[in-house]
């Protein structure tokens, strides 16, 4: 006959959840809010921040290359926007020029991970876990950061993954919630029905951290009146990415305890007709540039307590393929936007694009490990000294990207 279950709550809950338990080792006051933007699909960083001072770039990319800033045969908006005489923005990223000129945007070129598999899925996983190979903790680097640092903040919105699923980088022992749209975060029904539903949910989730967390977020967000939120900045792109940034801004301003927001901007896997000035890749750059610029403007009064980092799993092949796209490469690039970066500067050692300088099948070499950049943000801006817990078996080199 029927076996009875001991307790509803004892049907698999957190014992089945692959969460790694860390007791917070350190106590420190809250630092900056960290926004991590992951460009999924391997962004073509050579066309985002173009090494226009390098002849090899133009030889390798006869079709995709973006004209030098001083190329008189091209219209102004078809040329690289010069940054420092050697590097320059793709014209679709020119909206970031203001942040650059104000010294709040730093670029770290030829930056990335040692993994050379050129597999999106493997590279992303390793990077989000902050490890070099399959060994090492299954949790994510942001999850471990949150788990090893006690900031006295118990907000259910301490870490939020924008989208339908929380990013791998967030997994760890601290509850994290995925948030697609703040406005969607309610149960519906009239007040009476709502009370009944909330009571029932609270009962069935009484021993489940994630459920309790979701209920708290629901309550917190209900008070925020999200439908009536007006941003003073109206030029956020009308995209998922723009919405995610706007909602991040809203949560920061509402002071709900947000410490980390993870945002994805996908679609960078452009093997076929990626486009130089128009097309898939340039459209993504526009979304990225305009989104970050709007966020920067919207958060002007909060910049001293805000750091935004962009990253991608790897870069693309230096030479274009026969179908006007680029195949998987290696070296990538990061951008750091914030009130305390050593900005207006391209950091990192440029390895060059000449034959003997490229690695593997023709890829930009990595001269700065991505963990150097993240570690510096952790130590200097988030008050977390325990980088060896966040990036096990890695010894970061501090590159003075942050003040």
């Amino acid at each position, binding site marked *: 006959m029927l076996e*009875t279950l*001991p307790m509803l709550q004892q049907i698999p809950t957190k014992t*089945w959840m692959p969460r790694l338990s860390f007791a917070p080792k350190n106590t420190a006051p809250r630092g900056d809010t960290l926004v991590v933007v992951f460009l999924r699909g391997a962004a073509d960083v050579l066309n985002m921040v173009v090494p226009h001072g390098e002849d090899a770039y133009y030889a390798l990319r006869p079709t995709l290359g973006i004209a030098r800033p001083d190329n008189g045969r091209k219209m102004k908006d078809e040329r690289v926007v010069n940054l420092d005489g050697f590097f320059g923005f793709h014209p679709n990223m020119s909206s970031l020029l203001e942040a650059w000129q104000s010294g709040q945007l730093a670029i770290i070129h030829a930056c990335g991970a040692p993994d050379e598999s050129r597999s*999106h899925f493997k590279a992303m996983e390793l990077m989000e876990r902050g490890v070099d190979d399959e060994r090492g903790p299954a949790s994510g680097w942001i999850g471990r950061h949150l788990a090893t640092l006690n900031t006295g903040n118990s907000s259910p919105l301490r870490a939020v993954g924008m989208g339908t699923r929380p990013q791998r980088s967030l997994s760890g022992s601290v509850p994290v*919630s995925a948030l697609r749209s703040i406005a969607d975060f309610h149960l519906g029904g009239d007040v009476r029905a709502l009370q009944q539903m909330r009571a029932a*949910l609270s009962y069935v989730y009484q021993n489940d951290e994630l459920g309790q967390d979701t209920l708290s977020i629901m309550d917190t967000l209900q008070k925020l009146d999200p439908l009536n939120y007006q941003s003073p900045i109206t030029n956020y792109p009308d995209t998922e990415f723009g919405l995610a940034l706007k909602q991040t801004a809203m949560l920061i301003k509402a002071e709900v305890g947000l410490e980390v927001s993870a945002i994805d901007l996908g679609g960078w896997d452009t*093997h*076929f007709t990626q486009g130089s000035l128009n097309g898939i890749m340039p459209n993504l750059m526009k979304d990225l540039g305009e989104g970050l610029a709007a966020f920067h403007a919207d958060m002007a009064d909060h910049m001293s307590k805000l750091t935004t980092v962009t990253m991608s799993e790897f870069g693309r092949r230096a030479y274009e393929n026969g179908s006007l796209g680029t195949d998987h490469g290696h070296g990538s690039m990061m951008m750091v936007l914030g009130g305390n970066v050593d900005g207006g500067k391209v950091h990192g050692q440029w390895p060059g694009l000449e034959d003997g300088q490229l690695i593997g099948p023709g890829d930009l070499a990595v001269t700065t490990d991505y963990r150097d950049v993240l570690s510096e943000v952790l130590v200097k801006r988030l008050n977390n000294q325990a980088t060896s817990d966040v990036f096990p078996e890695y010894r970061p080199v501090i590159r003075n990207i942050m003040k």
Partner: protein
Amino acid sequence: MTLSRRDFLKLATLLSASAALNACAPALRRLTDDLPAVPWSPLSMADFTALNRITFGARVEERARLAEIGLANYIEEQLDYEAINDLTLDLQLSTFNTLTMSANEIEAVTNQLFDGYDRERPINELRQATFLRQLYSKRQLYEVMVDFWSDHFNIFIEKEPCFYLKTVDDRDVIRKHALGNFRDLVWASAHSPAMLTYLDNQANVKGTPNENYARELMELHTLGVEGGYSQNDVMQLARCLTGWSVKEHFWLGDFVFKQDQHEPGEKNVLGLAIQEAGQSEAEQVIEHLALHPSTAKFISTKLARRFIADEPPQEIIEKAAQTFLATKGDIKSVLRVILLEGLAFVQPKYKRPLNFVLSALRMLNVETDGVAMHDPLMQMGQMYFNWTTPDGYPDTSDAWQGNLMPRWQFAFELIRNELPKTKHNLNALLDVASTGSLHTDVDSLTSLLLGTPLDRLTRDGMIDTVHSAGATEEETLQIIAASLIASPAFQWR
């Protein structure tokens, strides 16, 4: 009941014209809506869990069937899927014309009026058909495998021109070989116009090859990322695949090999010297990849992960991989190992959104045309053929936890009958067993949804909680039904 009155009349006409009435008996039984006398057969938790892996959710009649013939026989019955009568469903799908069309015909449909409806029609029909099949087909294991391979050979339907090519891929690649032979499956996928355009191989031409498809063919479709290939193998396979493309003019959308775009010369992939031989160069590599020991291991691991546990036991993977090699990729034989021997090692898995929605609908015997599920599934992050990258929707529990809100919203909307053209009849379902007491009704509901009733304390606490929030007796049952679907227990299969 899944059919409208019109469908019923259609079926009745067809049945009366049929000499083989007996063969159609299961369909008739469903039409007359007679649930088994015992509303939901008592199953051990092990069998209940197994049934929820083999199907998209234990329907009442499937519980009865499993209780009747036992798990091993049930698995065999499901593996022999062609012998299972699915007439009711076939009739329901017969109005979806694009499902049976050639690529060229489907393209013509999308171009008729240049308006949004026609552009979306093949996508909508394919999505709705997939949903109805998963919800109502009696060939549940077959449909579970179709879902598995659709992830394994993922194609993002919104990428041009996949919006009209995927229908053909679904029919001629995935559904045709889902319980057939893996070599045939990967062969068909490699010649599939939808796959070739999704992974840019239609643009892979001599000179500077496009590596995209070549890489994913090895990394995701056969060997796996640790399967022992190098960057050079990717480039060499890409050279073999130059000229594999899709017709662009007459009979648009068919596979074509463009000899003039094929890279000349010898190639070397995974130590195999491939002589210059046009289209058959890549075909030789595919033969090699399909039955490679790394492929056997990779496919067995993924299957074990789907059916058994996120971290499946190594010995089952090994045995399944050996069977894969011994039978030269016979999918049924591999599945037999995984199900008959592996299900004993089953671990809870967090339901993916589709599985969550389907199991609720199936267990509560809900009537729907499926259209209303579009928005909730988008919000939960698993709309059919909508995963952009070629790795397919993730299959581990941790990937799906953390976004409970849309699941809760769905549960309450479903029970309040607020989803358009979607109706459950909780009372009719409970009437079969009801003694009129709320407590026994809650017990019935719980054993229906979770496989077994709650212990008395938990159940009574739940009823009290909802009561004290001001719910009437009738509201209480509704709220509890929704909360059970929203509960942590129901999120796990």
